[in-house]
């Protein structure tokens, strides 16, 4: 089945949607974040060939699990598997999540950063950390072969060039070290280095988060009017109101505040777009979009 290419912007939007799982009133962990990185086993994945997206988090505390870590929603990727590992030792806790994905369209896009909300153990303030984002260049098999032939020569030249640069850098570093050692007086041993978190900012308020998620959901539904987009938006809206996966609409509507007003209409409209028959899908998504707009208005 041919898939429509969608704007990389949607991925960024979906990252916000994915961060919706911060359920109301959830306690933040007290952590000293040392490393928080998003990586992949290949920066040039091939169409229809599975690869891994890896989130690595290292914190100084010993914890049995990491909560409030949100992966970006991998809109252009098909999710094949998700494996989480938490290892604790006296030096802290290493959390590693390996998501196996496959991409069906060639092109360039970026995976938005993963986020972590926690109380920073250094100053006791709630913060949100972000990993790096992950630009990917997806090749079709044909492009790969063509690139392979031309790439052979280029790689050889690049290797020679890289070796020369390394040599120059080493010489430069050695000269710089000698100059610094001569100029600086002996000093006391430096305290143990403390790695700063990659980046962080104030944890957004629940209302801000909800508004952002709804705006992004609208963006997604307008850009991709498919059932899978509707299902993803439905899941994101459910997470934003703290409803776990596996519940039915009836369960969700019984939650406080969900069974009335624009939110109720939105939940029902999204349920319809997820389960209705194909001929009704366009109208169902249209209604879901309108319900999203009404709900967004009710939040302001």
């Amino acid at each position: 089945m041919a898939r429509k290419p969608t704007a990389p912007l949607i991925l960024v939007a979906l990252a916000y949607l994915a961060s919706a799982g911060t359920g109301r009133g959830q306690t933040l962990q007290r952590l000293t974040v040392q490393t928080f990185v998003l990586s992949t086993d290949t920066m040039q994945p091939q169409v229809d060939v599975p690869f891994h997206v890896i989130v690595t988090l290292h914190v100084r505390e010993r914890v049995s699990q990491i909560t409030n870590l949100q992966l970006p929603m991998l809109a252009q990727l098909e999710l094949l598997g998700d494996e989480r590992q938490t290892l604790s030792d006296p030096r802290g806790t290493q959390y590693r999540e390996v998501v196996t994905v496959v991409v069906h369209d060639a092109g360039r896009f970026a995976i938005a950063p993963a986020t972590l909300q926690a109380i920073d153990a250094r100053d006791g303030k709630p913060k949100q950390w972000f990993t790096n984002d992950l630009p990917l260049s997806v090749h079709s098999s044909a492009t790969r072969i063509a690139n392979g032939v031309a790439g052979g020569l280029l790689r050889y030249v690049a290797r020679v060039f890289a070796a020369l640069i390394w040599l120059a850098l080493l010489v430069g570093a050695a000269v710089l070290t000698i100059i610094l050692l001569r100029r600086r007086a002996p000093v006391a041993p430096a305290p143990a280095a403390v790695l700063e978190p990659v980046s962080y900012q104030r944890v957004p308020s629940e209302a801000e988060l909800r508004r952002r998620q709804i705006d992004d959901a609208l963006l997604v539904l307008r850009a991709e009017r498919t059932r899978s987009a509707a299902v993803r938006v439905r899941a994101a809206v459910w997470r934003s109101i703290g409803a776990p996966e596996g519940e039915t609409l009836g369960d969700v509507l019984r939650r406080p505040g969900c069974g009335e007003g624009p939110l109720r209409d939105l939940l029902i409209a999204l349920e319809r777009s997820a389960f209705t028959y194909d001929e009704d899908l366009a109208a169902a998504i249209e209604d879901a979009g309108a319900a999203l707009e009404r709900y967004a208005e009710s939040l302001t």
Partner: protein
Amino acid sequence: MTVERQPGDLRAALAKTIVGQDGVLEALLLALLCNGHVLLEGPPGLAKTLACRSLAAALEGDFKRIQFTPDLLPSDIVGTRIFDQRESRFATVLGPIFANVVLADEINRAPAKVQSALLEAMQERQVTIGPESHALPDPFVVMATMNPLDSEGTYALPIAQMDRFLMKINVGYPTREEELQILDRFAMADTQPVRCVATLDDVRTWRAAAHAVHVDEKLKRYIVDLVAITRAAQSVAVKSTAGATLKAAELIDYGASPRATLSLAFLARGRALLDGRDFALPDDVRAVAAPALRHRIGFNYRLATENVSADVVIDAMIAAIPAP
């Protein structure tokens, strides 16, 4: 879907007569929409007969009640042939099963051959009397009751026979408020008969509409998973009344048949139509899962020795499968 009178109208009309018992009313309507039959288990005096009679009246259909007793014969149900001396030939007298709504009261009081005569008619929708086959009316719904309080002198229905019922409903006592309403409605004045709100043709149209209700692939997988877990429930934990934790699989001899899978899909479609939708939702499946499964699972002796309710096991299995 262009049906002038909706099944919801029928439910509203019945609710004016029957207080509470929403499960029984919904089961009756679902049986009507899905062309199936209902088994009811509950103590006497819970408006089962009234519900059936009201349904038949609301549809301008025929209603018959058969009281099952140990001396009942198959011919008492399906009919027989008698010799007409004036015409000097055998004439067929059709039994009480020839009605649109049949209440088979205390079905487990009759011996196996009578039970199977009824169940065969339910399945085939025709009976053979002598050399002639007679089609049963359409629609044809059997509501069979069993009394759980009085088990002496009864013949338990084999699972294979029970499998022919679309659903089994456990009828409970009304709430205090409902019982007060019953007092007001029935003890103080004459009951208002249910007026006709739909025709038998409407029922046939609704059935076609129910058949066309869309069931998404995700829902189909959910249905299959629900049935499959009844056959391999090792991962489902159940608490006994003594507080012991048991695996559901230890309490089950055999799980539900593929007929349960079909029934779940039919019932989900019917419930969606009752709700005015032409597509089914996970809520529809979950709502009908217990009634569609409870009489199709073979529980073993440990259920009784561990003092665990069959419904607790079924609910635990349903809860173990996340809705899509």
